[in-house]
């Protein structure tokens, strides 16, 4: 009995420092975001006025905000689908097939993930340059882009996909390497027996590989979507800053613009609240949709 009490005290001591830090630097600031979203405040002076939910009302009618919402959702969908499809297929190939230099590929594919977003932005600015960029230089071999260059970052319909390209580039290798690790844990005997039954590569992939690492896919998917909101902001900030004409604005970049450059701090925080709720809701939805009976092997 005494021992039990000692254990409790020990556990409390263990969690205390982390809990304090967590409360001070994460919980309180988050509550602050909610609280500040109900004020009108420029950000520098001391005159704050309580305005209740009026910031949210303005938000619902703000076309620029709705566009940033759209862009965020579009980026989430496009980037997630492409990244996961490619990462899974490549990982499947690299683990299942006898490919020479497997390790080499794995090392290289992971590199984009360790680079700073600022570095990636600078690289992609050079790739997307309309006159001398890598992409248009390559395309000019096949088509007439010399005369009529593709404006990767200037075309309003294209810019968000160009950003998506950079996002996919930096994420894909990471997930590929991770799925390779989990796929290699799938016992070989399963594939052998499936092979005997005449199941081809595709069937093996969809009926053995995917179901067996489903739990892994599910967690990564949820977190990828959340971190995507964050990453898309970092890329926009470093690459286009919302240009041209606000077409590449996403959630958080619009929030920054309002809070800082438009002197509407409370309004910016209201956007923060929306992002927070949106992230939670999305995670819950993804979690519910992807629920399957876990398969054991």
């Amino acid at each position: 009995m005494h021992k039990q009490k000692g254990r409790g005290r020990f556990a409390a001591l263990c969690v205390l420092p982390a809990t304090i830090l967590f409360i001070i630097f994460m919980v309180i600031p988050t509550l602050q975001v909610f609280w500040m979203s109900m004020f009108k405040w420029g950000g520098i002076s001391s005159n704050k006025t309580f305005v209740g939910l009026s910031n949210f009302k303005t938000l619902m009618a703000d076309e620029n905000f709705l566009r940033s919402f759209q862009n965020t959702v579009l980026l989430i969908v496009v980037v997630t689908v492409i990244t996961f499809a490619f990462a899974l297929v490549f990982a499947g190939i690299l683990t299942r097939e006898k490919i020479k230099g497997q390790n080499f590929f794995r090392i290289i594919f992971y590199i984009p993930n360790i680079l700073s977003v600022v570095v990636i932005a600078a690289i992609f600015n050079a790739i997307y340059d309309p006159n001398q960029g890598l992409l248009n230089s390559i395309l000019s071999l096949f088509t007439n882009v010399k005369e009529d260059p593709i404006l990767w970052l200037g075309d309003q319909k294209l810019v968000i996909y160009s950003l998506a390209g950079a996002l996919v580039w930096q994420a894909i290798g990471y997930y590929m390497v991770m799925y390779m690790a989990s796929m290699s844990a799938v016992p070989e005997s399963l594939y052998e027996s499936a092979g005997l039954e005449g199941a081809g590569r595709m069937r093996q992939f969809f009926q053995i590989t995917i179901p067996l690492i489903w739990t892994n896919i599910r967690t990564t998917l949820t977190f990828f979507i959340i971190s995507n909101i964050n990453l898309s902001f970092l890329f926009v900030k470093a690459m286009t800053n919302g240009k041209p004409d606000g077409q590449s604005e996403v959630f958080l970049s619009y929030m920054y613009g309002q809070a800082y450059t438009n002197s509407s701090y409370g309004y910016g925080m209201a956007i923060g609240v929306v992002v927070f709720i949106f992230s939670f809701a999305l995670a819950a939805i993804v979690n519910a949709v992807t629920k399957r009976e876990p398969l054991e092997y």
Partner: protein
Amino acid sequence: MKKALSLGLAAAFVLTAFAGCKAPADSTSNGGSTQKKVLKVAALESAYGADMWREIAKAFEAANEGVTVDLTISKTLEDEISPQMKAGNYPDVVHLGVGRDAALTETMIKEDGLRDLSNMLNMTVPGESKTVKEKIIPGFLDTSITNPYSDGKTYLAPMFYGPCGLFYDANLLKTKGWDLPKTWDEMWELGEKAKAEGIALFTYPTTGYFDAFMYALMYEVGGVDFFNKVTRYEEGIWDTAEAQQVLDIVAKLASYTEKTTVSNANDSNYLKNQQLILDNKAIFMPNGTWVVGEMADVPRVEGFEWGFTALPAVGDGDQYSYTFFEQMWSPKEAQNPELADKFMAFLYSDEAAKIFAEKGVGGAVQPITTASSLVNDDLKLFYSIYDNGAKAAMGAFVATEPVEGVDIAKSVFGTVDSIVSGDKTVEQWKADIIKASDALRGALK
């Protein structure tokens, strides 16, 4: 055991780092109880470079015994001082104009954070006989930029001025035998001729550069009266024929714009657009005199020679050139207001103007009556624009209370990107502007 040791070491490391890490950080703070007075000056490092500010600080220190100027110079000054100001550490003098992307100066105006500079303007320029007000070129203290609240008081002091207009390669026009267009009709003719040779008529660094351009255009189309109505968000002003003409001219110019321009019209890549002029891929770009220094080291086509003109006239009206100037202000919370005033007054002395003109890259010109004599020959070309018949345009959209989600500069100038790319029509553009203008009217101070 080994683990415990390493954890202990890690903890010890944290503690020592904690104790040690503040030491180098406080090089800028005054040691507390010294006799010396410290004046905190924050200045944007623009195309003129940082050296001239260091010289100015030295000169001011030499003239004022016991005063130290603590200088912060940065290309991204907002990132430096904005957190500090929120933390209650205000500089005494800030040289940072309106129209920057981070809009810190605009925020200070909206938030009533600026000190009235009337006292400073009435001071005698140190070592001279005239007051600051008398020395500043007439007109500079009557704009909606320097007097943002239209209450007759000056809150932002005008600094380095220069005409804005269209920059081009004079040699290109000469060799092709093309005349410099004096009216917009001639401009469109030139556009067609150039198109035939595969040269675009127009490019722009970013849409931010359309402020000077469109302000001057407003003066050309409707005069000062129309300009004032627009910049004070008067009801129905965007439904007038004048406003339509302004938008139509820009829209027509958009159709002559070099096709890769929009792609590079952002803060990271705008130099590539300016490069188009140096490579003779486009003829004109709106810009200011700093561009010469900005592009000084850049390769260019042979025989390149900077040319500069006011905007072409509308019909047989006047040509206008927007007078761009930077601004300096002092926050209400400044610790040393008297010393700040003295410093600011000093900047209008001949001594200071000389330092700016000589040490500034390309030469920074103060808006004082005696400055033109200090300018070097290259710059005379630009500053003589007003002597050659062009009229000066000044002013900007007036400050309002912040309105959530509404940004007039984005609506009016930022939309040009969409006009060029064809994603928006002039009608949509106009509708956007009217919406923003209506929203801001109610928030006028």
